[in-house]
């Protein structure tokens, strides 16, 4: 015994490589050291080269006045504000296009995905052609195409198309009246949140009630009615505390109201349509992945067709759909940086574009832009992973 113990205590250098246990650790240390060295090399190199170029590294430029204007801003902004604020304006614009695009793409994608499975030969072929065409034309081309179509075919503001007073469509954008809220509008907001709270409580009670008695309430329709109805009733009771600011043609352009600019519309359509083709295929594969036996079994139990879809097919299909859907959301968000091609002022156009150019802080601006995109992507990823876990098959 003693001899054996002595043997394993005696440590030779060769063991580091030839002994399996040590080798695993040594390899890991080597890899980590290599990565660290590589990162350090890049950092040192960057610092040296910046020095050689006579450039300083720092983020103080963010607090200097930006001196440029941005046409679409959801927060107050003018050319006297800082580069930081210009970056925030761009970030909000990126967020707007990403959220709007994801929603629209999902709706379109689900519709086309279901139509793709239609037993009607004509519909199913048309959708097939649509998907193949859209998927195989580069998204940048589609963005430029939509933008070109909008600015070239729509009339100038003076000959704007109009449906009724206050709604105008021209090559400067789609103008609609802007709601201006009065103080009493708070009642409507309160009613809205009260309705949501009520619905949550009602659903819980309905579920318990169903488990206890088997009696089923139309939870979905009641929820919708409450969430929409209650604020509407409150709105009228409060004496309609909302006025409309209609756009009107003054000088060169429409003034007042709200506007969807051609750049936003083109980008929104192009990204949504492009992504929807991929989502349609994902939805189709998801639905097809649920074996037909499931539907048949449900029918055999006497469950109604729309319930079969809602309670049996869709929950199982979602498990297949959600992970690739996440990638599509990430793609859409990252593709939104192509906004620069048509002059939509997103994050890349403001902080990564004009600010970078006017201040000459390439490294700093690019670092910020990269980090922000990374955080957005990781956030979407985290949310979708949470949702995926939630809908995952719970095994008992």
């Amino acid at each position, binding site marked *: 015994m003693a001899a054996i113990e002595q043997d394993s205590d005696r440590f030779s250098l060769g063991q580091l490589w030839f002994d399996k246990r040590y080798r695993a650790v040594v390899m890991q240390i080597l890899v980590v050291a290599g990565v660290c060295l590589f990162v350090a090399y890049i950092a040192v*190199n960057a610092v040296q080269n910046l020095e050689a170029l006579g450039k300083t590294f720092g983020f103080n430029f963010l607090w200097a006045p930006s001196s440029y204007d941005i046409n679409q801003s959801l927060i107050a902004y003018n050319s006297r504000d800082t580069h930081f604020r210009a970056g925030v304006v761009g970030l909000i614009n990126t967020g707007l296009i990403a959220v709007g695009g994801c929603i629209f793409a999902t709706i379109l994608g689900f519709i086309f995905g279901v139509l793709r499975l239609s037993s009607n030969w004509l519909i199913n072929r048309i959708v097939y052609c649509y998907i193949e065409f859209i998927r195989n034309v580069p998204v940048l081309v589609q963005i430029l195409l939509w933008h070109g179509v909008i600015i070239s075919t729509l009339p100038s503001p003076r000959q704007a198309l109009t449906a009724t007073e206050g709604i105008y469509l021209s090559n400067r954008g789609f103008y609609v009246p802007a709601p201006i809220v009065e103080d009493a509008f708070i009642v409507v907001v309160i009613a809205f949140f009260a309705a949501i709270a009520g619905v949550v409580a009602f659903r819980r009670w309905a579920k318990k009630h169903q488990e206890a008695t088997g009696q089923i309430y139309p939870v979905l329709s009641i929820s919708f009615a409450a969430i929409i109805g209650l604020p509407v009733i409150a709105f009228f009771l409060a004496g309609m505390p909302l006025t409309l600011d209609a756009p009107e043609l003054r000088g060169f352009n429409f003034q007042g109201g709200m506007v969807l600019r051609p750049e936003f519309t083109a980008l929104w359509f192009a990204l949504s349509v492009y992504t929807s083709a991929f989502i349609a295929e994902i939805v189709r594969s998801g639905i097809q992945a649920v074996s037909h036996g499931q539907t048949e079994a449900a029918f055999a139990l006497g469950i109604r067709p729309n319930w079969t879809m809602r309670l049996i097919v869709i929950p199982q299909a979602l498990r297949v759909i959600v992970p690739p859907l996440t990638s599509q959301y990430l793609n859409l968000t990252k593709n939104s940086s192509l906004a620069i091609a048509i002059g939509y002022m997103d994050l890349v156009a403001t902080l990564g574009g004009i600010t970078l150019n*006017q201040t000459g802080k390439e490294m700093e601006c690019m670092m910020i832009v990269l980090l922000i995109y990374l955080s957005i992507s990781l956030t979407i990823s985290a949310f979708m992973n949470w949702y995926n876990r939630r809908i995952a098959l719970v095994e008992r």
Partner: protein
Amino acid sequence: MSTLKVLLTASAVTVVGAAGASAATLDDVKSKGFVQCGVSTGVPGFSFTDDAGNWQGFDPAVCQAVAAAVFGDSSKVKYTPTTGKTRFTALASGEVDVLARNTTWTLSRDTDLGFTFVGVNYYDGQGFMAPKALGVSSAKELDGASVCIQTGTTTELNLADFFRVSNMSYEPVPIETNEEARTNYLAGRCDVYTTDASGLAASRATFDNPADHVILPEIISKEPLGPLVRQGDDQWADIVRWSLNAMINAEEYGVTSENVDEMAKGTDNPDVNRLLGTEGDMGAMMGLDSKWGYNIIKQVGNYGEVFEQFIGSATPIGLERGINAQYKDGGILYAPPIR
């Protein structure tokens, strides 16, 4: 895609970078055998590709003069088209040796961005162009207009200041290149296009009906346009600076590409003799041979010749010399003596 380019050049600064630190651009240029010249993506008259696909124009002429001075052959230039946004990164990263691209000389670009402007080859100012049909006669009437503007330029900053100080509102329509501006402006996406007045004249010349568009009288800024190089290599900056000065001086002394052979035999004027290398040894002081000035004038021409060839009153661009005339003729063009 320009975004990609910015990213690539940014990473080039990080990883390779060495080119940016080059102490002796002249040696690099000599060893690779050509001058890498950053030009715009195309402004009629100022920089454009001819039928054979070669870059020509008022701005490339500066690079051709540098090549003539260094190699004795004005064709030893390779061109990199840059947009208003990518140009500085291209120069800073060492992708180009000279930037000759209607770029405004400003303090921050000269210092903070780490470049050296070597002179001015066109004194310009920012103007506005609008369709005649709009009935606008002054820039002060532009309240509420949509304005097409090239991003990453000084004009973008002037525009913001002009409208703010005049207490007017406007919708900026940001675009990347002159060509894009043309498309948007003609499609009616914007009411007005603003850039350097020379650029407006150049763009208007290419419209189907130039007479339908009017350039408003207001000039809202000073835009001295000139070639620039990276800061920190004085020898290279000197070569570019004096290549430009040689062209301006040649016009002042009356040396043209036609009479340069005659004059190179020796004249009574020592200024001309020093320019053409028959007196003194000016070339050696810059690390060039003594025929540098002769080669520039012989192969590229003097300032006036280049001006008239590409943008002068006889061309479709039709620019007058105006303040870009020699100081003797009432302009402000005044090159230091070659001595």
